[in-house]
């Protein structure tokens, strides 16, 4: 049965950069069909965890599987199962939206006779059909993000991995991106693994969340469970502060701002 195999399964996942343990023994399971949020302050190890799952970084310690497929030994199969949208807003600005999506259709071996329709379908699902033949350097940040989703979807992945999908976007573009993600989940049953800083978004959109801090998992559950555990009328923001309090005091001098600034800058530098 489908539900027996987790969409993502990590066991004691560990990753070091030199002496620094970026991910330190993370174990988690993402159930097929859910929107799973990985939360945590900057430097918590969210992106590193995702980069191991997406095969971008080699597996150093522990295990990770996507729908039962080992990310270390069967990289190509894992890649065929998922769509990935990295944190940085990026598109090839010299190409049109349609050309950008077409490239990914080819790289994912979408059969030639289906390619045109699948590209159009992805663009339509992301509300980009009217702008498909414009050069993407003229796209707004929200449009580039939806284009990236279209690129990730053209393969019809079973698992969609989104790293800070709404960072650097204005509130309208944010809700636009989340609306599309929700629509997709409803129509396809796709599993979504998402990292975010935004507790409001996580509370509203995620079925379950995991809180990461300094490379380890501090809490995991539905937003309601985590809030209830803290008692009273706690918000997810309070849960976040409770589990990562020391990080909020210390993280800024280590480049908390610069990370956001880099993303903002690249948002304006597509092409």
């Amino acid at each position, binding site marked *: 049965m489908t539900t027996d195999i987790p969409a993502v399964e990590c066991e004691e996942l560990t990753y070091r950069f030199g002496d620094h343990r970026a991910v330190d023994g993370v174990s988690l399971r993402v159930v097929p069909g859910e929107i799973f949020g990985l939360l945590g302050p900057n430097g918590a190890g969210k992106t590193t965890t995702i980069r191991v799952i997406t095969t971008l970084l080699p597996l150093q310690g522990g295990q990770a599987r996507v729908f039962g497929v080992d990310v270390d030994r069967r990289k190509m199969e894992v890649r*065929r199962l998922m769509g*990935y*949208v990295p944190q940085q807003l990026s598109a090839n600005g010299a190409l049109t939206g349609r050309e950008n999506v077409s490239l990914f259709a080819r790289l994912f071996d979408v059969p030639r006779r289906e390619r045109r329709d699948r590209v159009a379908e992805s663009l339509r699902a992301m509300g980009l059909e009217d702008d498909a033949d414009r050069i993407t350097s003229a796209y707004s940040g929200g449009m580039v993000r939806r284009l*990236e989703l279209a690129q990730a979807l053209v393969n019809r992945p079973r698992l969609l991995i989104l790293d800070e999908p709404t960072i650097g976007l204005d509130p309208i573009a944010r809700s636009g991106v989340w609306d599309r993600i929700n629509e997709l989940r409803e129509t396809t049953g796709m599993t979504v693994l998402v990292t975010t800083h935004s507790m409001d978004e996580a509370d509203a959109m995620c079925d379950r969340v995991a809180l990461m801090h300094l490379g380890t998992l501090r809490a995991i559950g539905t937003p309601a469970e985590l809030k209830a555990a803290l008692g009273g009328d706690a918000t997810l923001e309070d849960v976040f502060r409770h589990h990562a309090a020391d990080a909020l005091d210390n993280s800024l001098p280590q480049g908390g701002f610069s990370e956001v600034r880099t993303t903002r800058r*690249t948002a304006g530098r597509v092409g």
Partner: protein
Amino acid sequence: MKYAPLAVPQGASADTGLFPVRRPPAWRQYPSRVAALCLVELQKMRRDRTELLTRAIQPALWLIIFGETFSRIRAIPTGSVPYLDFLAPGILAQSALFIAIFYGIQIIWERDAGVLTKLLVTPTPRSALVTGKAFAAGVRALTQAVVVLLLAALLGVAMTGNPLKLAGVAIVLLLSAAFFSCLSMTIAGLVLTRDRLMGIGQAITMPLFFGSNALYPVALMPAWLQVISHANPLSYEVDALRGLLIGTPAHLALDFTVLIVSVVLGVTAASALLGRLAR
């Protein structure tokens, strides 16, 4: 329905507990990735025709000023072949070299912009990605070569009209641009920044060019430079181009062998270092 259901069948296969994933045979990946990335290169070039013209200025100066002058003073003995005819294949090779040797900048840009990350998460082996990029550089070099060839024809260079030989010229240019762009991507994987790659690219272009037979016959060089010239893939490229275009005696079998082996080595080196750009 706004979006079609998943193409991959729901449910695991009984024996492995894994989802069957439709996959074309591995051998087809290389040509399909190369085709996809060459197509992107063509799409980009279609919108930037000015580059084709600005890049034609330098070879034009070499042919018109250097070529015409040295033809007149007869300083370089080229036997029965006029010097301008001798020079034209060398300049053709040079224009391809200039495009290819800075191609690694594109991969660094793609890394910085986050595009490379997304390419690396597609089911594309790193060597297929590098091969695709290398031949995309070749496609760009070929369009430039057409401009240089037209220019040479205008200046009265007597070139072959044999379509087979012209196809040979195209293949030599493709292979050479592929090799030099792999060299560039290898350096990109080592230095990781655009500025350093620009510096190194500029530092090696002229030695490669002057240390080859592009401007003068190898026999004229001092012995030590002859040794360097024999280790320089550009010399084999020019030898083949000259033989095919102008009809001078050439060692085509050796030239093609050297170029093909260089491309294989270049792809291997560049793909081994691509991971450094991915971190």
